[in-house]
Structure formats: C-alpha cells, structure tokens
C-alpha cells in the first residue's frame, strides 16, 4: 500500500504523465476545433493511425523528424478534407462519415505499412525526438525533470494549448469559428462563409490529430506497428465533452487521464495478484464515467452536428 502511495511522489511518474498526455493533448485539441465549428470528427482514430504511419515512414525514408511531423499533419489534413467535404457541402451523417474515415485511415495506413514491411519482419526503427533538457530550469528538483526535460513535440503540444486558447477567445477568426458552431446563419448574415470556416476547422483539427499519432511513432516508440493507437482517439472524443470544449480544460483532462494511465502502469509492478487486464481497462471505463458525470451540464455548441445549407432558413 505504501509503495502505491510512494509512486505518487516520484518525479519519473509525473514526467511520464506529460509524455503520455502529449498525443491526447493533440487529439483533444484537434477534436475540439472541429466540434467548436460544429462538426463531429469521429475519424480521429484513423487519422491518428495515419499520422503515426506517415510520420514514421517519412523519417525512415530519410527525412528529418520535423519534416516527418509536417507530412503527418498534411496527411491528417487531407483525411480531414474528405470528412469535411462529405459532411459540410453534402451534409451527410457526421457519425457515419467519421466512422468511414476511421476505417479508411486505418486500413490505408496498414496497407501502406505492409507494402514496406513484410509480414513477419519487425518494422525498422527510427531515431526518435530526444529529450530536451532546458539548461538551468531542468535542474530544479522535481519540477525540473517533470516540466523542463521533455521532448520537442511535448513542448509543442503545450504551446498549442495556449495558442488555441488565444485564437479561439481573442481573435476575430476564433470568434467566427465559435459562432459557426453555435449559429451558422448568423455567420452567413455577416457575409462570412460558414461552409469554408467548417472545412478549414476540420482540416486544421485533423492535422493536430495526426500530430498526436505521429508523436507515438517519433517519440513514444520508435516505429510503427498495427493497433498502436489503441482507442486513444475515442478517448479524446470523450475528453472533449469532459473539457466543455475549452482548451484549458482539455489540457487538464488529458493530464488527468494520462495520470491514471501512467499510475496504472506502475501500479502493476507493485501490486500482485490482480490481472493486468483490469489495469488496462481502467482508462476506458474512466472515460465513460467522465462522460456520464458531465453529460447533464454539457453546454454543447448549439449547431454541433446540424448541417448548414445555404439559403435554407
């Protein structure tokens, strides 16, 4: 029991919390942008898978890590464009289109992967993003290793939270995006184009989602393998609701969730006799619980999943 509690004070636990949270942060922010504009993007699982695969593949084929991330983001944006075209101008079911994108994104990623790596071969590894130790700051006891000795993509994720919060709340573009998710007719009445705003938001959100996937292959692990996303995308969808569609709360949710995940991993080593599957189940069950707790009070963007057609009032 005391060992379980001791774990809570270890810096390595909290450092790994930030690491585990990184793909979730990208994913939640990505889903948040889409939903704030009024589009539910259930393609996240497939987009993250595609991002993971393209990020790894690009680096393995000789490019540097940042190019790998950029290519992953573009792949995500392209998948997002497909989803956006189906759901915005054509107004098709956002649920089904998103599921289709997830199935397609995963299938395409695995197919391309298999073109490169035969069955039975172990996938070639790449050199990952190294941990960057910020001079001086990383020497601070406890906070140092936790906050100031992370990899570049993790810092990028944290910056993304701040930037997104700023854009959403303090810029005209962010206001237009929020309004598109609340009342697209109001946006049209001001001479703006809600369809374009939605399409742009979905592409940008999908690019972020793909970055979350790319983190897995370029930092967390060092290669791609099937089923590596493991439902993180769906967890992000749940976390968006939990975060009331706000970037700050999204960061909190991702950290909270990552904490449970990191803790559960370490707990397995100190607690005997409990099947490991129960530990692994915890994240998913927690997400469901989070959804139930917030469901009543959720201030959903009013036009989420309501298709908008020009001229229809």
């Amino acid at each position: 029991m005391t060992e379980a509690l001791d774990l809570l004070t270890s810096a390595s636990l909290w450092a790994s919390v930030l690491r585990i949270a990184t793909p979730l942060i990208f994913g939640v922010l990505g889903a948040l942008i889409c939903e704030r504009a009024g589009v539910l993007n259930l393609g996240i699982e497939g987009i993250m898978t595609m991002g993971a695969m393209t990020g790894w593949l690009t680096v393995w084929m000789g490019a540097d890590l940042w190019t790998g991330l950029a290519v992953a983001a573009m792949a995500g944006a392209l998948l997002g464009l497909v989803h956006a075209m189906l759901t915005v101008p054509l107004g098709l079911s956002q649920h089904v289109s998103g599921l289709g994108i997830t199935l397609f994104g995963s299938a395409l990623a695995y197919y391309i992967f298999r073109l490169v790596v035969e069955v039975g071969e172990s996938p070639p590894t790449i050199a990952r993003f190294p941990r960057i130790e910020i001079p001086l700051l990383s020497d601070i006891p406890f906070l140092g290793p936790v906050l100031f000795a992370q990899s570049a993509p993790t810092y990028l994720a944290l910056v993304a939270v701040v930037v997104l919060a700023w854009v959403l709340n303090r810029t005209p573009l962010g206001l237009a995006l929020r309004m598109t998710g609340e009342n697209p007719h109001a946006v049209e009445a001001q001479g703006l184009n809600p369809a374009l705003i939605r399409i742009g938001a979905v592409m940008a959100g999908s690019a972020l989602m793909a970055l979350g996937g790319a983190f897995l292959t370029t930092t967390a692990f060092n290669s791609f393998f099937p089923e590596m996303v493991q439902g993180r995308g769906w967890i992000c969808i749940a976390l968006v609701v939990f975060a009331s569609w706000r970037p700050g709360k999204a960061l909190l949710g991702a950290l909270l969730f990552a904490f449970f995940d990191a803790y559960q991993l370490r707990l397995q080593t100190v607690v005997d006799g409990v099947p490991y599957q129960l530990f692994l189940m915890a994240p998913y069950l927690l997400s469901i619980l989070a959804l139930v707790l917030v469901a009543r009070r959720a201030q959903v963007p009013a036009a989420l999943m309501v298709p908008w057609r020009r001229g229809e009032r």
Partner: protein
Amino acid sequence: MTEVLALRNITKRFGALLANDDISLSLRQGEILALLGENGAGKTTLMNILFGHYAADAGEVEVFGRTLPPGRPRAAIDAGVGMVHQHFTLAGNLSVLDNVMLGTEPLWRLSSRRRAGRARLMALSERFGLPVVPEARVGQLSVGERQRVEILKALYRDARVLILDEPTAVLARPEAQRLFETLRGMTRAGLSLIFISHKLNEVMAASDRVAVLRGGRLVAERRTPDTTAAELAELMVGRRVSRPVREAQPRGAPVLVLDAVRAVVAGETRLADITLTVHAGEILGIVGVAGNGQSALGAVVSGTLRPASGRVLLNGQDLTGRPARAFVAAGMGRIPEDRHEEGVVGDLPLWENAVMERLHSPRFSRFGFVRRGAARAHARELIARFDIRGAGPETRTRLLSGGNMQKLILGRSLAAEPAVILANQPTRGLDEGAIAAVHAELLAARARGAAILLISEELDEAVGLSDRIRAIVGGRLSRPVPAEAADPRRLGLMMAGVWDEGEDAGDAA
C-alpha cells in the same frame, strides 16, 4: 426627399412557386415604410433579396444610388443596409459583445480590439436608448433584450437603412410601443427603415407609407395617413374568404380541469400556478405573447410534459403524470404547435402518421402486428372526410402542403370524436383558405359538444372562435373574460400582465 433604396423589377422563383413577381419599391430618406402582407405573400423573400441572402432571378437592388451585387450579404452590409431577422441570428452560448462584433474585424487580425468595440457598443446603446450588458450571455436574455442586441448589431455596422422582419411578433404591447418610439428616434437621427408586418394596427400606428404584397405581387402603395385599416385588410387579402362565425350556445359540464399546475422545463418554471376549466361545447382561448408558457401549457395538456405539481383531470379521470398514450385513450385530441417538428413524421407514409397515436388499440394492431388494411382504410376515410388534397395513403407525409398536413393532424384527432381538443397555434403559417377550413372543423366539434382549449397568438382567431378568453403572462393566467367583452384595448392590457387586483388563478366566469 432623396431615395436611399430602390428595388427594381425583382422576380424570384422557388421551383414552381413564384415568390416575388416583378416588384418595384423605393424607400426615401428618413421614412418608415411598412411592408404588409399575409403569410406567404413574399415579404420575407423580398427582404432576403435586398439583404443578399438570396439572389433574385431578375431585377436589381440599388442602395444610395449604387447597384448591389446579388446574393452577398457583405455587399449589403458595406452599403449600409442592416437586417434585424425575425428568427434572431444570435448565438445563445456567446456574450452580447461577441455576437455584435462577429464579422466586423478582418479575420487575419491577431488580436481582437474588444475594448474599443465595447466602448462603441455602449455609445450606440446610449445614443439610441437600447440598454444592454455587453458581457451577458445571450441565452439568458429575454426576447426583448435579444431584439435590442439584433438592432445594435446593425447599428454597430453603421447601417443607414434598417430592415426589421416582424419585429413585434414576440413583444408584448408596451414593449412594442417602446420599440416603435425607438424606431422613430432612429429616423430622426438619419436612418431610414422598412419593417415587415402582418399586423394592421401596428402598420397604421408606426409607418409613414405602406406597401401591400399579395401572392408575390405588389398590389398597392399608400401613404399611411391617407388610408384605413379596413382598406389595407381588403388589399392584403383580396377576395375575402369569409371565416366561419361562432354561434353562441350553452356550455355543458366541465370536461378538462387543470388544478394548480406547476411545470418546470430545463430548470426554469414555465407554468407557475395554472388552474383552468374547459366545459363541453365551449372554446376557451388562451392568448399571449410568445414565450409566456404557451408551449409548456400545450405540453402538459397533451401529456408530453409531467407537471411538477398539480393535477390534470379529464372527465374526472386523473391523468397527471400518465403517458401521452393515456391522454389519447381518455379522449384527448391534440394539435401540436409545430406540425413539422411534432405533428408528423415526415418521412413516413400518410397512413402511418394517421394511426401512429392509436397503434396500440385493437383496431389497428393485433398480437403486436400492425393491421395495415384497417390503417390504410382509416387513412382513406380521413382524406375524404377532411378534404386532404394532393396525397394518397402511401404519400410521404413530408410532401403535403402546410394546410393539408394540418388537416391530416386535425382529422386524425377529430375522427375519434374526442371529448377534449387541444388546439395549439392551429393555423400558424396557413393561407386563408386553410384557416377557414380549420376554424370550421373546430366550431363543428364544439357544436358536437367537444371541449376545446385554444392557444393562439393571433388575436383575431382567439376572439373569433372562443367563448371565453384568458391571457397567459409569465406562466400565470388572467381571469377569464367573455369574448363579447374582449376588445383590443382590454386584451392588450391582459396580455401585458395588467390585471385587476385579485384577478388570477380563479376560473369563475
């Protein structure tokens, strides 16, 4: 006087419907022009073309001497035209300031100039007498306050021509008065206004000129002082389809009783303390400005909303908290407020909608299976008896016109000869012919001894059909007033909540 706005030869078609037929209209500096017409006459379409929501098929729009490119609201806004929409284009989850500032700054700007915006908003608010709180969440504002935000949105963009679409549809009389005073103030400050309405008394009271639309055409223009309400009414309707007249008849025993009903929706008390009685053979009319509890009242009586306290009794049977099916089985016929949203399932064929309320009865089902033959036969009966045109039993219900859909909804309830009928906005959005048909059916049911609870926003309809009238304000009911004693002034006061002392909760007339 200078001409600030000119519409020349505007024509617009929607499929087979000719919404605007070669309309030419002009607006002069500083004047208030009223656009008058019935539902479906083409007023809103015309204004949507002016503002750029739609592009006209032919004709052009000139503002301050310059032709506007069609179909672009931005062009209209930049030219100084502002529109206050009937269904507010506001986002409830965002603040007043957010709603006002949307679209006023270039999208690439890195930081929104909110302080300056706030100052400008407050200056306008003071100048035109439209008090608002910039940080307030729009979702929490009253309807009148939301309208102020809509108006300020236009003023914030330096509108010099303002279009208001049915501005008083959701306001009580005193608020409507205040609005028209504000509008007058605006014209003195240099604005020119057009407002769309179908309410004759307001048009007479508040405009300088009137343009009357009928069936997509401009049929007349008058200077308001030179015309009368009667003339306008005739111009508006053309060959008048006479509405059926109610004949006095003695009423019977109490059939529907609501006793101290309180209803809560989403945490808000919509009905505070409702006690009413409707007798056999009478129509009790509930009048009021939209948003005072009519929807909740309709929902309680139709069995779709469970009261927080109080009782609902039908012929002595306590139906409180019972499901809607029990209401139907007990003899309640219901016409919902919104036929598209609640009345019918548009994608199903007519016959399924005709029997949906009664699927569990032995007549239409056996051992869990639908008796399709009986259901289809019933649908054919309804079509014949209630003159439902343009459809057979297999037609997708969505394809029916508004009037025919309403006849179906009416018919399926009336065919069962219900003891009580709830008619909630029964003629909303219908043309004169359909209105007359609906009224005739309701009066016939009354003659047969049904008790009818009529909830209506149209005063003419309420006064014409009801034996007694009560006003609903803030979830409470005024004392009933016999229809003969209900003149416009008294009704206006009742609807504004000005009741004599001790005049509520009782049902003693």
